[in-house]
């Protein structure tokens, strides 16, 4: 075997703390190494051409690239060796950047370690063999989880691209957080006027199957062929009959139900359509408040419903959908401000969240767009906005910036002045973060044209004084304490991962960070892909995002799905398990341990033997360790290869 070793400088990223020429020199003495050199940028065009040229000129059968992490550029170099005429699996990488040059400054130790990692790669490569993918059929349908603006955009783009879309939404209407907003920044255009038409498009699109009030229960399968179980929660109303006329809401006697759409600032009926523009516009019964469920008698809605749609005995239904790709757009939740004891911990009715205030501002909200204090219905004169409630605060384990609160607070200050011209707004802020087109101009308008008084500092405490609230904080620019008597305090609560995100991530087999936000494949270059093939991210489930970014990601995820489905067939990864049937004793342990059901037992001349279904196997290698006979080996990660790596490290 003839192996070529290419040690990358990565500009100065590696060369600064690793003597790459010396690593290449050492590598020349390794077994089977026929050629070794250092290169400036191995991933650049001349770098890749250099590898291809060396393969051809020196007649190499395998290549080791010592550079960055294989998670970064393995695919790049596999394509390069393929262009050079080799099988793409005759490549190994030694990670001498993330695992060497970037984590230590000792050049001697780094150089030595880099050479060892090259040796490890060479020993593995000596035992590699050419592998060939199998192709398999795909289901050209996509599942979109979450019907907020990101999910809506992804669903519409996929459907317009000719794909069948299954859209699952947890609540009884799509629209998400955006549907609750009164206006949007920085244009101050009406949120439901721009979102509403898109929601209608979803309802009317022949390629979109919408499952509202449903949740993903279980996900099986793999890219191209997922099988998804969806729990359609009981609405107690037959939606195929419900016309959305709203008569039941008019007559329902339980008028004190929690109004989730209005963030609890108003009350609603036990049977309700959450808001007039809801899609689907169908009623559902909240069993926690319905007299029929609580007391066993009422039945008013059943009596008045003109289409006879009420079904008190309805139960959850689980349906199964087959899809080839999944877009996750589950959005975010608001930080729970009751964790701040100093802001009243939720005890003061006139200390509300920004989204509650949004409902007070909205013409379709519980107050018809008149700003009224929740406590006594009085119109506030002094409104204090407190920014960074649950953002940039390590004491509540939320060190990150939620990104959009500065902007929506400026918007709300502007709207407050519009609604109540004689009002005065105060905004307590830490820094104003307004990077975006027309964003900074917008916050300046709030101050300069609308007279919002911005105070740089945090609020120390809020407490009632008479029927008003005393807001005490620091003005760090003036270096003094400030006390403002306010009629209403609006907390600009930050974003956190949607409740249940980790559980969904586990079902999708994708990673999430410590706050529950889903991890993208690469923070810059693969922002909507995950490390699980066929699963994509859109919107705030990946991290706090404003509307334009969420819509952009929705489209981006859709384009990734369309790209995936533009191929007739998908190719399976050949790094999968293989059974040596002469060694197999047919115990079936591998079939039992396989998480994917990729091992089946077959009959070979009267004896049971294991066989791997190549397009189902995902290559985890659990079976290889389980097999008591060593009959199952994971291609590209065989026992011999791993032990050769160990040996390469441990020989002195």
């Amino acid at each position: 075997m003839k192996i070529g070793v290419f040690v990358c400088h990565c500009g100065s990223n590696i060369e600064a703390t690793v003597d790459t020429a010396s690593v290449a020199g050492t590598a020349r003495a390794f077994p089977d190494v026929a050629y070794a050199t250092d290169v400036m940028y191995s991933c650049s065009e001349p770098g890749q051409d250099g590898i291809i040229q060396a393969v051809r000129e020196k007649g190499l059968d395998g290549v080791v690239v010592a550079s960055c992490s294989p998670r970064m550029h393995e695919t790049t170099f596999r394509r390069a060796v393929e262009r050079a005429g080799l099988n793409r699996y005759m490549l190994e990488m030694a990670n001498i950047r993330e695992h060497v040059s970037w984590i230590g400054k000792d050049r001697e130790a780094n150089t030595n370690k880099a050479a060892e990692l090259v040796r490890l790669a060479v020993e593995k490569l000596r035992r590699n063999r050419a592998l060939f993918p199998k192709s398999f059929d795909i289901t050209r349908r996509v599942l979109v989880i979450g019907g907020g603006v990101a999910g809506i955009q992804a669903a519409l783009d996929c459907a317009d691209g000719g794909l069948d879309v299954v859209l699952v939404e947890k609540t009884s209407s799509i629209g998400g957080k955006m549907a609750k907003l009164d206006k949007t920044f920085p244009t101050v255009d009406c949120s439901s006027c721009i979102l509403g038409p898109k929601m209608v498009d979803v309802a009317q699109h022949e390629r979109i199957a919408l499952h509202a009030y449903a949740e993903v229960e279980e996900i099986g399968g793999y890219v191209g062929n997922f099988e998804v179980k969806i729990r359609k929660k009981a609405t107690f109303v037959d939606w195929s009959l419900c016309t959305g006329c709203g008569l039941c809401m008019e007559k329902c006697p339980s008028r004190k139900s929690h109004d989730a759409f209005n963030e609890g600032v108003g009350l609603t009926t036990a049977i309700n359509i959450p808001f007039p523009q809801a899609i689907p516009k169908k009623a559902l019964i909240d069993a926690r408040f319905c007299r029929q469920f609580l007391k066993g008698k009422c039945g008013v809605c059943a009596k008045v419903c003109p289409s006879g749609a009420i079904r008190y005995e309805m139960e959850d239904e689980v349906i199964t959908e087959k899809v080839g790709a999944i877009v996750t757009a589950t959005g975010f939740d608001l930080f729970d401000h009751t964790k701040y004891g100093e802001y009243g911990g939720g005890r003061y009715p006139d200390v509300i969240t920004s989204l509650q205030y949004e409902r007070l501002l909205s013409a379709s909200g519980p107050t018809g767009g008149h700003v009224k204090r929740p406590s006594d219905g009085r119109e506030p004169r002094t409104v204090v906005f407190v920014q960074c409630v649950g953002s940039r605060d390590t004491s509540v384990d939320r060190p990150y910036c939620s990104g959009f609160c500065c902007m929506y607070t400026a918007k709300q200050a502007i709207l407050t002045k519009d609604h109540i011209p004689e009002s005065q707004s105060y905004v307590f802020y830490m820094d104003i973060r307004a990077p975006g087109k027309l964003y900074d101009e917008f916050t300046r308008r709030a101050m300069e044209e609308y007279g919002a008084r911005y105070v740089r500092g945090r609020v120390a405490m809020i407490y009632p004084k008479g029927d008003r609230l005393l807001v005490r904080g620091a003005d760090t620019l003036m270096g003094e304490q400030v006390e403002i008597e306010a009629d209403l305090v609006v907390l600009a609560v930050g974003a956190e991962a949607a409740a249940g995100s980790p559980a969904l991530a586990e079902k999708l087999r994708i990673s999430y960070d410590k706050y529950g936000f889903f991890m993208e494949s690469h923070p810059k270059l693969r922002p909507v892909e995950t490390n699980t093939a066929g699963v994509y991210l859109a919107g705030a489930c990946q991290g706090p995002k404003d509307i334009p970014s969420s819509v952009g990601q929705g489209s981006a995820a859709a384009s990734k799905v369309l790209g995936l489905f533009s191929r007739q067939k998908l190719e399976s990864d050949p790094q999968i398990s293989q059974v040596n049937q002469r060694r197999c004793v047919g115990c079936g342990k591998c079939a039992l341990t396989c998480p994917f059901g990729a091992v089946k037992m077959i009959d070979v001349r009267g004896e049971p033997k294991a066989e791997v279904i190549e397009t189902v196997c995902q290559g985890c290698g659990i079976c290889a360790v389980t097999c008591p006979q060593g009959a199952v080996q994971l291609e590209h990660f065989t026992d011999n290869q791993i032990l050769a790596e160990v040996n390469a490290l441990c020989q002195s």
Partner: protein
Amino acid sequence: MPILAGKELRIVGFLCNWCSYGGADTAGVGRFSQPTDLRIIRVPCSGRIDPLFIVKTLLYGADGVLVSGCHPRDCHYGQGNFYARRRLEALKRFLPIIGVEPGRFEYTWVSASEGQRWQQVVQGFTEQVHALGPSPASAVFGACREIPDEKGGPRVAV
């Protein structure tokens, strides 16, 4: 090529590709400096790690072995780390029986986002191994180390 005499000990890491290898990458991207002793072997899943790999590594003369996978319930393959946890727990109890000090082997869970945690894990484990000093195993077991070169040859000869 030897480890740097007097400076380093021989520490081998087995890391799953999806979480911990990524976490080690994240630590690198964040320039979280670490001791240079550790050499990482990438495997697809912690469930791919045969406990006998670790035994062999220690008998070949490694002074410490560190295994890291995805957090429980967070496995890319659904269940691999549960298998790993069971196997490695059994291994932990077995190692003292063959005369390996317990501190020479650790397993842990680090996600791809936890660069800083990886730094702490490496720092801590390296210090722990240095406190134990060089392993006596290589001198004792130096004889029994042949590696089958052909696929399908004898398996681990322990």
